[in-house]
């Protein structure tokens, strides 16, 4: 066991024990749960490396080293770093003393202040935890100050703190370190009402800091679920039914060698061996016949036929302002539809989970975006109480929504039930791509009208696609509306007087749906910003000027558009077949304007040269981390625009690996120029909005370069190739 794993399991044990003490008190109000005195000093049977854990988030060792238990999953977005900044600044400790570890799976203590559950998605971490974790840090600081005041027998109000020390200026500047004070502070009740720092006193929040995981991820020591090693551990390779709902019909296992174990389940075949290669070879030597079931004859063409037909029906109303039908009847009308394909997540770390099933209990190791959801999934699969499941969450080799689902936990638990030792169940890349929970295919049916003055008078946006909420919950929609599918479409940032958004459910056969980076806005923003460009062209206006003329009611977005356009040299001449396109968006609480500059060659191949973005995300915790998320998000979205498409034939997903499910490579990656607009508004999300900004700006730039409007993704190179008649 590596040093890291030891620390991690100690932390889990510590908090689990703390939770047992705190559990009853934690049932009350939301904020209370942050201030629950874990009081392990009373409950601990043996000493631990931690001497202060006033509220389940903070531990301070005698040498002053600080450990934070972070409720959100680290999947690359830098959340261990940014949430640690919130705690460390208010606690008043140096950032180089800080270590971040995953919090154990306990909703009552670590659940989001918004959702009351642990979960990392929807660009919510900073939006949910910005103030609560600052208060946690401030509460911890107050306890340390009180401990010093007790020791010195002075009024705590006369003391101040600095970099992990309490200082008494009225007595010659005497000092006590947090490490010395921690055992005493641990016995105090955590104050429930604390004052957080004034903006001017912030030292870490709003200032760029280095990622806490920068070193370990550059030298191979970072531990992912894939890297778990346990005594006696075996490895499993699996093949699940290639068709949703299919079953194993027949297996020929005559070639399986004696040191391998065959696990045959209803819809999964696995081979267990002493190492992964042996297991995989064994699996590949099997001859498996599948009974594909009712979806075995479904192709993409049928799915799209269903979706297109359904999308023409009236949907459930999500929002209405003015009278859209009347507005559409008055003016020059444009009717269009935009279509987006199914997408796979394809995180670099293929799905995997390590599970050890023992009589009546289970222990598991892996990376999840829903820690308590993973526990619940294992408990349900194994038919044991959740308290009997011990889960060690690891840093994630990419999430992008894939690890919001728990199918990888369930599959591993089902296989582990048949194995007498811990077993690491590893999906091949082929399994990862063909057994994904895919971003829904969407059809956006849209209508808009222009007044003679060039202003938009009417707007109707109907979103048709499958419901992830329904797939996950198994419950039908209330009144036919899935709010998760209309996000990004409702805000009417352009102030259209007659405005309506609808949703209509159309469940695809043969495809399971899941949340994907950018969630609904990666569809809705594409549709909105494509239509805005088409309207600008119809009105004879410049796309930037057209948007600015509609943004008086949304000044923060207007400022982003102005800044991005200016920085990108909007309007300056470009070579033939080069073009610029803009996307303006409000999504996940963040305003971004993005200008893409692209070049289209004679074969229709598109090179995205550069993105120029201006972002107003309100209060920012780690400015450099935010820029990194925007850089990465833009590229993630561009991959989808240029290449992303999952298709189905005979009920089976046709793409299987990076050779036929392409990801942007270094030679294709655009440069980025990002301007952060300073703001003291509420913090916005940043993990996803870059992703939603990529495709529309690219497609609008392609239109500018070629005159060809693409209304489907991924881009169709045949339409862009320059024909010689």
């Amino acid at each position, binding site marked *: 066991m590596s040093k890291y794993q030891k620390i991690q399991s100690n932390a889990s044990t510590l908090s689990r024990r703390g939770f047992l003490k705190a559990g009853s008190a934690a049932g009350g109000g939301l904020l209370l749960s942050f201030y629950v005195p874990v009081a392990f000093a009373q409950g601990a049977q043996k000493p631990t490396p931690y001497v202060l854990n006033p509220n389940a988030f903070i531990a301070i060792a005698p040498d002053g080293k600080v450990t934070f238990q972070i409720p959100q999953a680290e999947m690359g977005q830098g959340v261990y770093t940014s949430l640690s900044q919130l705690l460390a600044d208010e606690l008043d400790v140096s950032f180089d003393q800080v270590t971040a570890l995953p919090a154990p799976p306990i909703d009552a203590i670590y659940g989001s202040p918004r959702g009351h559950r642990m979960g990392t998605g929807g660009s919510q971490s900073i939006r949910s935890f910005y103030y609560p974790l600052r208060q946690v840090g401030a509460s911890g600081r107050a306890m340390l100050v009180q401990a010093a005041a007790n020791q010195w027998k002075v009024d705590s109000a006369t003391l101040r703190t600095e970099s992990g020390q309490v200082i008494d200026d009225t007595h010659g500047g005497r000092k006590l370190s947090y490490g010395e004070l921690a055992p005493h502070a641990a016995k105090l009740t955590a104050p429930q009402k604390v004052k957080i720092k004034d903006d001017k006193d912030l030292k870490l929040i709003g200032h760029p800091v280095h990622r806490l995981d920068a070193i370990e991820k550059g030298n191979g020591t970072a531990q992912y679920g894939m890297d778990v090693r346990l005594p006696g551990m075996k490895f499993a390779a699996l093949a699940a039914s290639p068709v949703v709902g299919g079953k194993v019909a027949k297996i020929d296992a005559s070639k399986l060698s004696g040191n391998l174990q065959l696990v045959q389940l209803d819809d999964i075949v696995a081979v267990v061996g002493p190492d992964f290669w042996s297991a995989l*070879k064994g699996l590949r030597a099997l001859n498996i016949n599948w009974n594909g079931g009712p979806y075995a004859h479904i192709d993409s063409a049928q799915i799209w036929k269903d979706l297109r037909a359904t999308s023409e029906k009236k949907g459930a109303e999500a929002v209405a302002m003015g009278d859209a039908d009347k507005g559409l009847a008055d003016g020059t009308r444009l009717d269009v539809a935009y279509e987006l394909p199914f997408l796979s997540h394809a995180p670099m770390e293929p799905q995997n989970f390590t599970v050890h099933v023992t009589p009546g209990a289970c222990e598991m190791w892996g990376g999840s975006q829903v820690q308590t959801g993973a526990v619940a999934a294992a408990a349900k699969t194994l038919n044991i109480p959740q308290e009997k499941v011990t889960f060690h969450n690891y840093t994630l080799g990419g999430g992008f929504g894939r690890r919001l689902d728990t199918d990888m936990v369930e599959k591993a638990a089902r296989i582990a039930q048949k194995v007498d030792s811990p077993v690491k169940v590893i999906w091949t890349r082929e399994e990862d791509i063909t057994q994904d929970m895919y971003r829904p295919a969407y059809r956006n049916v849209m209508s808009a009208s222009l007044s003679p003055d060039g202003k938009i008078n009417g707007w109707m946006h109907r979103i048709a696609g499958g419901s992830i909420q329904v797939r996950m919950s198994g419950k039908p929609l209330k009144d036919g509306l899935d709010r998760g599918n209309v996000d990004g479409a409702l805000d009417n940032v352009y102030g259209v007087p007659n405005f309506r958004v609808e949703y209509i459910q159309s469940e695809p056969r043969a495809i399971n749906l899941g949340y994907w980076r950018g969630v609904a806005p990666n569809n809705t923003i594409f549709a909105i910003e494509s239509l805005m460009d088409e309207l600008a062209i119809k009105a004879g206006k410049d796309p930037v000027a057209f948007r600015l003329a509609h943004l008086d009611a949304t000044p923060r977005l207007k400022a982003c558009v102005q800044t991005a356009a200016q920085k990108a040299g909007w309007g300056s001449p470009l070579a033939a077949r080069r073009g610029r396109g803009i996307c303006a968006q409000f999504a996940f609480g963040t305003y971004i304007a993005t200008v893409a500059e692209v070049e289209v060659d004679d074969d229709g191949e598109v090179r995205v040269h550069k993105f120029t973005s201006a972002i107003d995300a309100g209060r920012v915790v780690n400015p450099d981390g935010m820029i990194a998320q925007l850089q990465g998000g833009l590229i993630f979205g561009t991959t989808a625009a240029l290449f992303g498409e999952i298709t189905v034939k005979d009920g089976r997903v046709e793409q299987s690996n990076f050779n036929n499910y392409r990801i942007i490579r270094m030679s294709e990656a655009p440069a980025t120029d990002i301007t952060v607009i300073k703001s003291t508004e509420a913090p916005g999300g940043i993990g996803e909005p870059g992703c939603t900004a990529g495709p529309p700006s690219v497609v609008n730039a392609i239109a500018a370069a070629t005159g060809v409007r693409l209304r489907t993704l991924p881009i169709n190179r045949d339409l862009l190739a320059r024909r010689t008649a």
Partner: protein
Amino acid sequence: MVTLLINGQSHTVDASEDTPLLWALRDFVGLTGTKFGCGIAQCGACTVHVDGKAVRSCQLTIGNVGAKSITTIEAIGDTPMGARIQKAWADIDVVQCGYCQSGQVMSAVALLSHTPNPDDSDIDAAMSGNICRCGTYVRIRQAIKNAAKTV
């Protein structure tokens, strides 16, 4: 039984000769810094050095390695070039999820070892076999240039 020279040490592994070096490193030797990403040499997460050259370890069987010298991410920091690249990576916070970065670092070290002052096309050629799903390419490119300046 196959004997491999890994990071300057001899390791005898009880694995069949057709085992890819990737899985021998991870499951037999316990060096998990080298990552499995695709298994078909499309992503570069498994990149190691064999006699100083960047190689996709998912495609090289241990039976074919012979006495060649293997260097993995765990030891590349002990070389001056490896240390320089890792520092350049940390200086500008290249990593996000980090899963591909072992391979990125190994490819970058190989590049700078042979091409001390790479231009953009050199970087494209050497690094385009390494996929980063988080999209850290902008910073990888910058970190390589920064490291080259310190050569």
